[in-house]
């Protein structure tokens, strides 16, 4: 950019010098011809722009730009990818359950993040007898590390002995896995309150309409809820290395 400016200035100076050294009456004539020429050039340019403006709108470009946009506003948004880390754990949403307690419109909640093929639990548990006594897992579910609250917590605090496809509240009320936030909210009351208001957790979808909520378990592993540290994406390039 600077180079261009430099050359332009140079050209201007030369022209000026050339013109100022001419003292004959012809100079005025030439000067006026310069103005006329410039005026003509501008006139041509404007008339071209005008003629372009007067053209009728083409078929594939109707003039109502804004209206077509207004229509598009109502169309449902495409579902964007969730957090990159959770991609494998979260199955594609099948039947988002409505939440009655959440203020505003009916809000879709993402389905619980089951490992593929694990639900319904009764698929395996039908023939298995569950022990009501706390014990260490030796055959199945060995990957589950329970690191949530007091040390004496165990499976049947949340899972149900006689109905393994359901969770239960402290009151004994059975709830579906899709309503697990009620179970979490028993201890984490303020967090549940903030979650319902949209402050805790992530909202996706439309700020102006249907918001998609994630269940607590979509982000926090219910067995070990603390967030694991992750690798950050690369830092910005330092100004001295900018190319």
């Amino acid at each position: 950019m600077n180079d261009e400016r430099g050359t332009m200035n140079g050209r201007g100076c030369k022209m000026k010098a050339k013109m100022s050294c001419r003292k004959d009456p012809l100079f005025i004539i030439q000067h006026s011809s310069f103005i006329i020429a410039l005026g003509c050039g501008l006139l041509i340019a404007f008339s071209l722009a005008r003629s372009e403006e007067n053209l009728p709108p083409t078929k594939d470009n109707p003039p109502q730009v804004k209206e077509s946009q207004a229509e598009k506003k109502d169309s449902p948004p495409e579902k964007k990818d969730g957090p990159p880390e959770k991609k494998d754990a979260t199955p594609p949403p099948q039947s988002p359950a409505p939440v009655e307690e959440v203020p505003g419109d009916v809000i879709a909640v993402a389905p619980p993040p089951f490992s593929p093929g694990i639900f319904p639990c009764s698929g395996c548990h039908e023939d298995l007898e569950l022990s009501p006594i706390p014990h260490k897992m030796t055959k199945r579910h060995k990957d589950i590390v329970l690191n949530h609250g007091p040390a004496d917590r165990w499976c049947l605090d949340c899972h149900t002995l006689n109905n393994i496809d359901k969770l239960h509240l402290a009151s004994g009320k059975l709830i579906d896995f899709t309503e697990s936030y009620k179970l979490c909210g028993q201890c984490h009351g303020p967090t549940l309150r903030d979650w319902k208001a949209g402050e805790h957790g992530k909202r996706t979808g439309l700020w102006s309409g249907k918001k998609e909520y994630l269940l607590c378990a979509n982000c926090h592993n219910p067995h070990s809820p603390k967030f694991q540290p992750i690798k950050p994406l690369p830092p910005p390039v330092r100004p001295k290395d900018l190319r």
Partner: protein
Amino acid sequence: MEEPGRREWLKGLSLAAAGLLLPGCEGKFNETDLQAFFQKNFRELSKEELRKVLERLEKEYSEQYGQPVSVKATPPKEGVSFAYALDLSRCIGCRRCVYACVKENNQSRTPQIHWITVLEMDKEKGVDIEESNIYYDPDTVPRPGKFYMPVACHHCDKAPCVKVCPVRATWQEQDGIVVIDYDWCIGCRCCMSACPYGARHFNWGQPHVPAEEFNPETDYLGNRPRPKGVVEKCCFCLQRVRQGKYPMCVEVCPVGARKFGNLLDPKSEVRYILENKRVFIFKEELKTLPRFYYYFGI
């Protein structure tokens, strides 16, 4: 005395005038270049003129990126005033938002432009820009004893950048978004020195976006490709939020630290946060009245 060739003189001058009128069109003289040259400020365009400008840009970008590109100019909605809230207690500094923003808003890859800058600071020292580090690169984040503060455009109601712009190429829209007319910007960078948040970035070189990573859903005031020599910054994902969607950084944040909504809607998340949480306004003493609030969720 020999009379100088009047005809040659006129010819030369008209050629020179044409050359001056059309800088940078590499000898190709056509109506499109002329239209681009005489294009008015975005806010002075009539409906018909705007339609033509968008049409021209769509054609230009479609050719450049080898795919159909849509350039819209969605107007702000009535009764909407955007605000943004970011939870400092949750942000882990993973920079997912930075790169999602780059992709969504077609920011230049080389030379690199990031609209979001994430500052790493000591918990002990609190918010202290002098001690902050933006080049942190540990194996995992968050690092113990540190907290992270992403900074982008704060969309101030009394924006110093808007005030200093000598050509009025940047202004605040009805819904609170501070926008730039990239075709009107002269690249003087006054706004960059005026912005207390370092949110504005200059295209020092020809911006380069790989065609396969190009986002074809663009808006005139939002994420359309920028020319060399203009300033750009966060636009609250104007092309998304005016369609009712959340900004891309909100969608991608893995910890849900980013909140966005309409201040005039009492049920919106931002209203709940402003009413119930401990809110912190960055450089509040400058009285720029930002629409970007930091808060402490826990």
